[in-house]
């Protein structure tokens, strides 16, 4: 290892301090983020709450260990929620003494601000690049964030000895235990759904309610009420035309197959027991599914398990053996704030 663990940890901590500086001045970049992401100003402010600024020693050690060691890392950012570049840059910085970052062309504001802050703080290891021809990279690693197809295309273009670490897209889901307090669980889950207007890979798009069907239906109604309240405080931003089309199709399908609670900026659907998990589209849409037992949860998750990045629940102990091993687990309401102990997506290559 060319740099000690302590040096790597210090480099990451310095970057988090830069994040704190950017956070303090977030008003300056919030409009650009809102314009690019479609989030409302309130949605951007909520999103900033997920920007990592602190980390425990134990988590940071795990983070540095997960990052490994590379001569250089080239970070290529594309589809991500707007706070994600920080963890991506920190991961690369933990791995290497030299890091180049190509921001998302669509939403570069936070990346640029972080690099500016890092340079101002005396860390010249981070360099911003506007374009990145990966075929010209001959050493080190490429960390690419985006669709699986994007990652595959990039992988095909790099030199054979350049390591590509791909961080693809995924989804979150919620599991509501038989002992859950309905209103509290619904309020907490609503927070996870509203963050980033559900465009993150941690965002829950299905809620499995373990227990009898009427209980799940009651939870769907409670979740609708929670989203109504939260929506007045943090209005949904704009959805793009194709997102609205996806939402329309999902609403029509679930209005037929189950039951639908709709409001101006969200919808909750109830799907009948035994149906395959109908994954809701992004934009504050969620499908509530009753599942009778733990075994049935495992069976229901099987077809989508490889896409699941995060699971939120009211009963962490009860998840054992029920969810994919790679999935992050957290309490409802905390799904969007995973500890800085590795990549957000633990499936990452």
């Amino acid at each position, binding site marked *: 290892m060319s740099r000690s663990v302590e040096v790597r940890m210090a480099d990451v901590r310095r970057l988090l301090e830069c994040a704190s500086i950017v956070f303090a001045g977030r008003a300056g970049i919030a409009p650009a983020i809102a314009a690019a*992401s*479609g989030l409302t100003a309130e949605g951007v402010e909520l999103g900033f709450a997920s920007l990592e600024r602190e980390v425990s020693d134990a988590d940071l050690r795990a983070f540095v260990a997960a990052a490994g060691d590379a001569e250089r890392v080239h970070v290529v950012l594309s*589809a*991500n*929620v707007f706070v*994600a570049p920080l963890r991506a840059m920190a991961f690369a910085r933990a791995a290497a003494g030299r890091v180049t970052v190509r921001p998302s062309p*669509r939403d570069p504001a936070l990346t640029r601000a972080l690099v500016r802050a890092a340079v101002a703080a005396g860390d010249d290891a981070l360099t911003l690049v506007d374009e990145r021809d990966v075929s010209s990279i001959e050493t080190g690693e490429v960390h690419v*964030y985006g*669709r*699986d*197809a994007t990652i595959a295309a990039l992988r095909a273009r790099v030199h054979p000895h350049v390591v590509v670490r791909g*961080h*693809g*897209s*995924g*989804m979150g889901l919620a599991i509501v235990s038989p002992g859950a307090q309905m209103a509290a669980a619904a309020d907490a889950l609503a927070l996870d759904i509203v963050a*980033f207007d*559900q*465009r*993150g*890979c941690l*965002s829950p*798009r299905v809620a499995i309610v373990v227990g009898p069907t009427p209980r799940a239906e009651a939870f769907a109604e409670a979740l609708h009420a929670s989203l109504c309240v939260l929506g007045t405080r943090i209005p949904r931003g704009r959805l*793009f*035309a*194709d*997102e*609205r*089309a*996806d939402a*329309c*199709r*999902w609403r*029509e*399908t*679930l*209005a*037929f*197959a*189950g*039951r*639908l609670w709709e409001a101006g900026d969200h919808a909750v659907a109830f*799907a*009948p027991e035994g*149906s*395959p*998990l*109908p*994954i809701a*589209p*992004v934009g504050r849409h969620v499908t509530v599914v009753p599942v009778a037992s733990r075994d049935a949860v495992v069976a229901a998750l*099987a*077809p*989508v398990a490889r*896409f699941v990045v995060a699971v939120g629940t009211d009963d962490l102990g009860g998840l054992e053996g029920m969810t994919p091993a790679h999935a992050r687990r957290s309490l409802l309401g905390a799904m969007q704030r995973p500890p800085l102990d590795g990549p*957000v*997506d633990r499936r990452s290559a």
Partner: protein
Amino acid sequence: MVLAFQRGVAMPESFDALAVDLARFQVKTVPGYARLCAARSVDPARLVRAGDAPAVPTDAFKLSRVFAFDAADAAVTFRTSGTTLGARGMHLMRDVGTYDAAALAFGRAMLAGGLPAPVPVVVIGPSAEEAPDSSLVHMCTLFARALAPGSLDQPRCFVRGGSLDLDGLRARLASLAPAAPAVVLATSFALVHLLDALGGERLSMPAGSRVMQTGGFKGRSREVAADELRHDVALAFGVPERSVVAEYGMTELSSQFWEATLVDERARHGVYVAPPWARVVAVDPETLAPVPDGAIGIARIEDLANVDSAFAVLTEDRSRIVTGGFELLGRSPGAPPRGCSIALDEMLSSAEGPP
């Protein structure tokens, strides 16, 4: 309506009147349709036009019961070929009589019109025994039985166990009487496999023979542009390109749509024609309102032969109404991700990719 079409006489009732009757029947007998109408504040008693009734998305066939009878009374269950995250769409029928009559009447007119009976049928696909839940295989078998009733002892299906039986196909084609034009029924991907296997070899078909191609590639073969496939198929079978016609059907429907190049000299490839008992409307994917002719929407299909399921079906296929029919422009791709949340389409394509 099918009889009227076959006899060439006026339809006994208007399309809208029949559609409204069906909508009311399906509201009473299909609980999901009643829920959908209620969610959209549609009062079946006040319906006047087919377009006023909501369409059932094809996804609903994967999640829910879309039939107007007890499941135990189903005579046949057709299933979609792709599995969407573990689910296949199902279309149950308690009586295939309506399906068969509609499919045969329009198919015969669009594919076999003017050919002397009997018309030998060659299917480059599996048999009904191998694929009992495929509506396409059912239709091909139906055509074979109806067009060449005396030749059922002849082998007619040339995909067995998932493999093309090229030698069997060559032998069957060689056995055809030169004066008896035949029809070939095939999926697009089976035709690609055939062309690859032929490697430029030309097959011999009786003069006047015709070829039906249907469906997409679904990851089962390399993808070939429609024009190129048609050209190569025409060469391989020794028929004019206008004798290679595309058919568009879906498991969720009871009617099919055809290119009209065999029956209308003005018709062009890529434009599909509906039978009188079906209608395709391009609708806005966000509002589901019809878009103007020439504009791209998604295909809402009103199929009066879907008596016991859903007379109006919302597909995922992009379409455009043009002079003489409608064009198909591929499946709607869905929303690309604008965060790291996985897109529905990405999930589905990952789940449905080739094994």
